[in-house]
């Protein structure tokens, strides 16, 4: 091989090596790509496809394209609108309760951070988060059972008439919020505790020298310091609440009336009880877009807060 031929061959072999390298890199991405397509992209695309059809699982051969009719029907369906209202109330109330109680719990654990009791209590406090929601639902249906539950027994002991925790329409959603908050307050508490622990000790010392009260410290040092981490917690809890299902399924099944109907339960009923998969898919797509929009707004707010 002449010198000029070698010079031509070298870039060619380099190109070959580079494309081989690229192929190898791509090969590493294939499993993740397949996973993404099979479990995320395809189901999503198929859901959107189904949502544009009148489709019943038991009669898929009679499926027909109806455009956006399912969506139009959804937003005139009083039960779906009740479900949207309920999930909004549930999300805002649960997260508010979780932040308020979580903050004070975090303060207690922060003050006990160097004691053995504090370590033990901290571990014990996260147990609710580790129990599956279906078990939580079952446990609370016994606790709030109108006849045999301990909740009404204790109320009776202090002279209060038994409450219809799940049967009184004005109380049922509040009971679900109570259960949901009980389970997830430790999550907020842990996030805020981590935030508190990241505050430099000098800031506390300076505040003490200045004679600041505890609420001054909370307002001017702690809350600004943990604001970012709390926003992350809010995003995660908003998404969690939008896909809340198990607790409602076990305790109230959306009732009494439509007082605890939520969007996931609505979609579940359409898909798996009535097998109206077109209409159910439309509900699922709406839930997905609502999650994406709410998350995007919160992330935007988070970024602007961080920039400040």
């Amino acid at each position, binding site marked *: 091989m002449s010198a000029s031929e070698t010079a031509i061959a070298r870039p060619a072999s380099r190109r070959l090596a580079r494309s081989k390298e690229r192929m190898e890199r791509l090969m590493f991405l294939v499993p993740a790509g397949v996973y993404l397509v099979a479990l995320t992209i395809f189901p999503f695309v198929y859901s959107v496809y189904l949502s544009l059809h009148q489709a019943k699982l*038991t009669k898929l051969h009679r499926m027909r394209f109806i455009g956006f009719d399912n969506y139009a029907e959804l937003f005139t369906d009083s039960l779906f609108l009740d479900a949207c209202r309920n999930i909004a109330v549930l999300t805002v109330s649960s997260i508010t309760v979780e932040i308020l109680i979580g903050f004070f719990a975090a303060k207690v654990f922060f003050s006990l951070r160097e004691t053995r009791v504090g370590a033990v209590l901290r571990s014990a406090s996260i147990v609710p988060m580790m129990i599956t929601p279906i078990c939580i639902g079952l446990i609370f249906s016994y606790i709030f059972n109108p006849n045999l539950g301990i909740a009404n027994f204790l109320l009776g002991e202090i002279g209060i008439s038994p409450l219809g925790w799940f049967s009184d329409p004005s109380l049922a959603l509040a009971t679900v919020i109570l259960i949901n908050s009980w389970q997830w307050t430790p999550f907020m508490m842990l996030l805020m505790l981590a935030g508190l622990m990241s505050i430099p000790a000098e800031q506390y010392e300076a505040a003490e020298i200045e004679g600041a009260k505890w609420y001054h410290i909370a307002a001017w040092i702690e809350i600004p310091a943990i604001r970012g981490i709390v926003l992350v917690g809010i995003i995660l809890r908003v998404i969690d609440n939008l896909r809340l299902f198990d607790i409602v399924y076990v305790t109230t099944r959306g*009732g*009494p009336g439509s007082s605890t109907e939520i969007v996931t339960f609505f979609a579940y009923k359409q898909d798996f009880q009535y097998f109206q998969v077109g209409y159910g898919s439309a509900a699922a797509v709406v839930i997905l877009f609502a999650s994406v929009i709410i998350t995007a707004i919160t992330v935007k707010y988070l970024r602007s807060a961080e920039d400040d």
Partner: protein
Amino acid sequence: MTKQLLMATVAASVVLAAAPAVAETDWDSLLGDHSGKSINMMVVNDPYIEAIRKMESKFEGLTGAEVTTDGFGYDPLHEKEILGCSQQDDQYDVLFIDGIWVGEFVEADCLEPVEDLWGDTDPAIIAWDDFVGSIAGQAQWGGKTYCLPVGAYWQVMHYRKDLFDKAGLKVPETFEETMEAAKFFTNNPDYPGMSGYAMNNRRGAAAGQQYFEWIYSAGGKPWESNYPGSEEPYADQTPLLNSEKSVELVKFFHDMVAYGPPGGEQYQWDDRFNAFAQGKVAMINAWSVRTPGLSDPAKSNIVGKWASAQMPHAKGEKTVPPVGGWIMCLNKHSKNKEAAWDFMRWFASPEIHKEWAMIGGVPSRHSAFQDPEIQEKLPWTKELYTAAKTAWTEGRPRHPLTFEMIDAIGLQVNRAIIGEATPQEAMDTAQEEVTEMLKSEGILK
């Protein structure tokens, strides 16, 4: 109704004339050898499931096939069966389905018609006419027999005989008398902690089915051509959910809450049974599958203190007892059809059916109801048999929209019960929704 009664009487006479209906069968020669095979069954988690499990080993001894019975709740069973069918799943060979789902399952092509299977089986083994007519009809669709109606339930009213006798109260026959009796026992210092009547008020299937259980005795009908004795109950399905009788009935449900146990608005099947069994309510109506539990000291505090009567009716009307229960079907996608069919015809036969009823199953055959041993062990079946013979087969609608329709009505009935809407408003909404539902399926124009 007269025609129905006549037919039931004739059928019963035929069965008795063909005695001994419950003769010993040579199962060894009749059933195949299915060693090494397994038969999986999906069954609702109702109390009779334990009695089914007790029968498994007997069939295993006869044929070598291993039988497994898996129990599921009412809604999950429906969901799992339809999803399995849509995926042509062969995991379960025998499916117990609620009689009212038959249309939905046939349309989804889930069932192998048993009529095509029984071929040269001795008619005495199937003994079709021995099944009580009001449940037998639920195993048929479009003129074809798809399943075997082995798990029939009917409803009667159970009441605390001891308390009624002590108070000198007459057993109620009308809605008004029922409410008066319920009122008497509620918040009465002589009966501390006692409520009058526990109903099935929970949103969804519970309240929806309750509506159908009472509407005919209220003198109403759910749609135009669905009434006891109708020759063509599906000819005109124009809903009558907001008719005067219908709204009155829902108002009755609402008013009865005041005489029910605390939290009664959320009660469903188990809750009302448990409240009665614990001695907390004076009256319930319940499906017959739970009735044996009232005589079981492990489940009941009122053993020997209760009795049964026909369900009440509106003034000037007649009681039309509800019929429900489970039909045993062969999964079209089963790979063990031969073994599964052998199990089905064995299990459903009058002889084995009696054995099953004696250990906690539900009498569904004339021969079982008329059997002296059963009558002695389960004396309440006498009242139940009267209900069984007068029940209206189409009392709960059997068509492909059944599940959805009952759920939608159940939501509105529950809304009226808890006061979220007036009975008129709730039933107007139910009327509108069911009409839309039927229109979307092309059933109504």
